[in-house]
Structures are given as structure tokens and as C-alpha cells.
């Protein structure tokens, strides 16, 4: 089987369509399972009561936000280095999902913070780093949105994403530093006492669900992007109904 033909966006389009249900359905099932375990099976936390359960959305969302940024940078980099349009389109598609998860993690963090610490926002290291990550996503999306020529948008995005990905550890470290300096005014949200096995299970199920969901939704968006950009490609009319 010649796999290289799938590097062409038009050829990949139907393949993506076939793959999506294999991720979307398990994602839905795992979401249901994870929420069930998280809200009904996992024990009540000794310190935080039941409010902590929002962690089952907050933590996987934060992890996905970070993971997807790296994936976005990798796809963008490959698209740039090998002049592979499909890879760049993947990066563009991932950016929106990654930004959404990051935003979700900030919002759920706020909902957790209010009952627990009394304020909607706390400047701890993790939340601050997540906020900065959201800024990085917004920068990438805005840059691509402002450039009319799609290939220039792809390549410019790649440079920005790669610069961003190298900076993320530096930013994270500097925020940690800043946070420890100003410790008096802040409180650590993710206090990690021993985590009960059922809580861990729920978290991992939700993480897997988020990952499956991401693949499905990124592929759906990718198909829209392909339709938008490949109007003049060979075989477009016959492959894309």
C-alpha cells in the first residue's frame, strides 16, 4: 500500500472521514465512564469536600492544552521543513482545540478556586503558566488569521510555534521562580496529598477521553480546512463530494 499518497490533502480527506468515528465513539463512551467514576465512585476528599471533583475536567484539560501545543509545533515544523501542506493544516486544526482546552482549564480552575480559596483567580504558578499558554495559542491563531497567503501563514505559524515551544520551559521556570518569590500572597491550588486510586483512575479515564476527543475533532476540522484550501487541487471534485 502506498502510504505517501495520503500526504496529499485531497487523498487524506476520505481516510480522515473513515477514522473519525473510531475515535469519536470511544471518546463519548470514555467521557461517560470517566464522569461516572469521577462524580459517583471516587471518594469525597478529606480536605476539599466534593468541590475537588472539578479537577477531573480541569487537570486533563490542562494536560491536553500543553500536549496539543507541542503536537501543533511538531506538525507545523514538519509542514515547514518538508513543504507538506497537510501537516501544516493539521497544526492549524490543532491550534483551535488546544486553545479551547487551555481556556477550559482556566475556567474550571476558577470554578475550583472560588469555593476553595474564596477568589475566582489565584496567581499560582500553574494557573499563570496556563494563562500564558493561552496567550501563545491566541498569538498563533491571530497570526495565521491575519495572513492571506495560506503557505505564508503555514510557515510563519511554524516559526512562531517553534519559538513558542522552546520558550515554554523558560516561561514555566520563570513563573515558578516568580511564584516562590511572592509566596506570601499566593496559595498552591494543586496540593497533592496522596491521591486515592479511584481518583487517579477517573483522571486517567478522562485524559484518555480528552485525547480521543481531540483526535476526532481535529480531524473533523482538518476536513473543513482541506475543503477550504484545496478547491483547485486535482481530483478535488471527485473525492470531496
Amino acid at each position, binding site marked *: 500500500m502506498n502510504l505517501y499518497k495520503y500526504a496529499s490533502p485531497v487523498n487524506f480527506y476520505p481516510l480522515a472521514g473513515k477514522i473519525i468515528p473510531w475515535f469519536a465513539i470511544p471518546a463519548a463512551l470514555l467521557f461517560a465512564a470517566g464522569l461516572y467514576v469521577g462524580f459517583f465512585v471516587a471518594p469525597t476528599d478529606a480536605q476539599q469536600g466534593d468541590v475537588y471533583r472539578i479537577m477531573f475536567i480541569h487537570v486533563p484539560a490542562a494536560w491536553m492544552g500543553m500536549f496539543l501545543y507541542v503536537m501543533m509545533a511538531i506538525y507545523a515544523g514538519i509542514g515547514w521543513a518538508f513543504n507538506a501542506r497537510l501537516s501544516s493544516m493539521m497544526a492549524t486544526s490543532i491550534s483551535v482545540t488546544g486553545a479551547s482546552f487551555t481556556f477550559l482549564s482556566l475556567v474550571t480552575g476558577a470554578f475550583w478556586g472560588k469555593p476553595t480559596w474564596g477568589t475566582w483567580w489565584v496567581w499560582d504558578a500553574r494557573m499563570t503558566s496556563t494563562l500564558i499558554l493561552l496567550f501563545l495559542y491566541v498569538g498563533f491563531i491571530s497570526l495565521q488569521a*491575519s495572513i492571506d497567503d495560506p503557505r*505564508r501563514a503555514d510557515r510563519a505559524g511554524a*516559526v512562531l510555534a517553534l519559538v513558542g515551544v522552546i520558550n515554554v520551559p*523558560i516561561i514555566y521556570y*520563570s*513563573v515558578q521562580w516568580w511564584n516562590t518569590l511572592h509566596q506570601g500572597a499566593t496559595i498552591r491550588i494543586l496540593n497533592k496529598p496522596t491521591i486515592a486510586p479511584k481518583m487517579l483512575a477517573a483522571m486517567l479515564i478522562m485524559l484518555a477521553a480528552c485525547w480521543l476527543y481531540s483526535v476526532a475533532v481535529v480531524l473533523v476540522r482538518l476536513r473543513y480546512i482541506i475543503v477550504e484550501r484545496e478547491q483547485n487541487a486535482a481530483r478535488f471534485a471527485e473525492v470531496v463530494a
Partner: protein
Amino acid sequence: MLRWIVWRDLILAWRRRADVLSTLFFFVIVVSLFPLGIGPETQLLRTIAPGVVWVAALLASMLSLGRLFANDYQDGTLEQLLLTPQPLYLIVLGKVLAQWLVAEIPLVLIAPLIGVQFDLSRETLLVLFVTLLLGTPVLSLIGSIGAALTLGLRGSGVLISLLVLPLYIPVLIFGAGAVDASIMGSSPQSNLYLLGAITVLSLTFAPWATSAALRISLE
């Protein structure tokens, strides 16, 4: 060959002095706005001074970044620069150096004067000066990446800020942190070392990223 590009940009900046001076005044005005917005209580001002001066420096730098490549792009000299036998890395370095001398050094020099408005001690003013001296090259270097990526785009002024300000955060943290340490009476050394490390890293990698971005924007 570096000297030709630096000389050229310095002469051009001199002949358009108004632009340079207006950025400097922007810096001064923004810093002065904070006491007006927050209140003149000395202790409070001393606490906010490092952050305020540094944020104002970041914003003033953003203003001058738009000019780094835009003018050359419009009159066709930028593509000629890409076609010289000089490595683009060096040309970028030359332009960034000129921009730093013209746009950032005035900020560095005037900052201690402004620091006086916030009742900072002499040692703290010295630390402020050093952190800006050490940190402003990073603002120019990383800013050049943003300027190169957004060449010729509508709304590029605001877009540069969106792209570059998140990347400035480590510099802000360590720069303001050093001044803060000095105010608290502790040693600013660790902050300064980290700031210096970022400067060296930017000096090594940023011009390469900017070169790549220039080629992409000029396609």
C-alpha cells in the same frame, strides 16, 4: 559588513529623530500615569516601581519594533538585503543592534531619572539601570522575530504585541525581580544571572529565527 548596515540604520534613525523621541516620551508618560492612577503614597510607589518601569519599557519597545523592517520592506531595500552575499543572520544582528542603540538605550539612560519619582535608593537605581541594560537587548532580539513575522500585514502593530509580549514574560520576571530584590534589601544577583542567561540565549538563537521569518514574509 555589519558596520555598513548599522551605520545605515543609525543615519536613517537620526534623520527621522522625531520617531525615536516620541517613543522615549511615551515611556516617560506611561510610567508617570501609574502614580496618578494608584496614589502618591511613597511606600506603595516603591513597591510597584520595578514592575511599572519594566512594563512601560516593554510597551515602548513594542512601538519601535514596527519600524524595524517595515520601512525597508516598503521601499524594496529589504529584499535587496536578502540578496547580499552576507549571511542574513549578520544583517539581522546589525539591524537589531542599531535598533537597540536608537530605541532602547535612551530608555535605559532615562530610567534612573524616572526611578527617582518612585523614591528608589541609589543602589536600586543602579540595579534598575543594569537590568534594563541587560534585558533590553532581549526585547529587541525577540521583538525582531515578531516584526519579521508580521511584515506587511494589516494591524501588524497590535499583532506584534500579541505575539511577542508572552515571550517577554521571563525577562520581565527576572528584570523586575532583580530590582525588587534590591528594594527588599536582598541580593539581585540570581535574577541578574538568569537575565544574563536569557540575553545570551536570545543573542544566539533569535537572529536565526528572525532570518527564517524574513524569508517567509518576503516570498
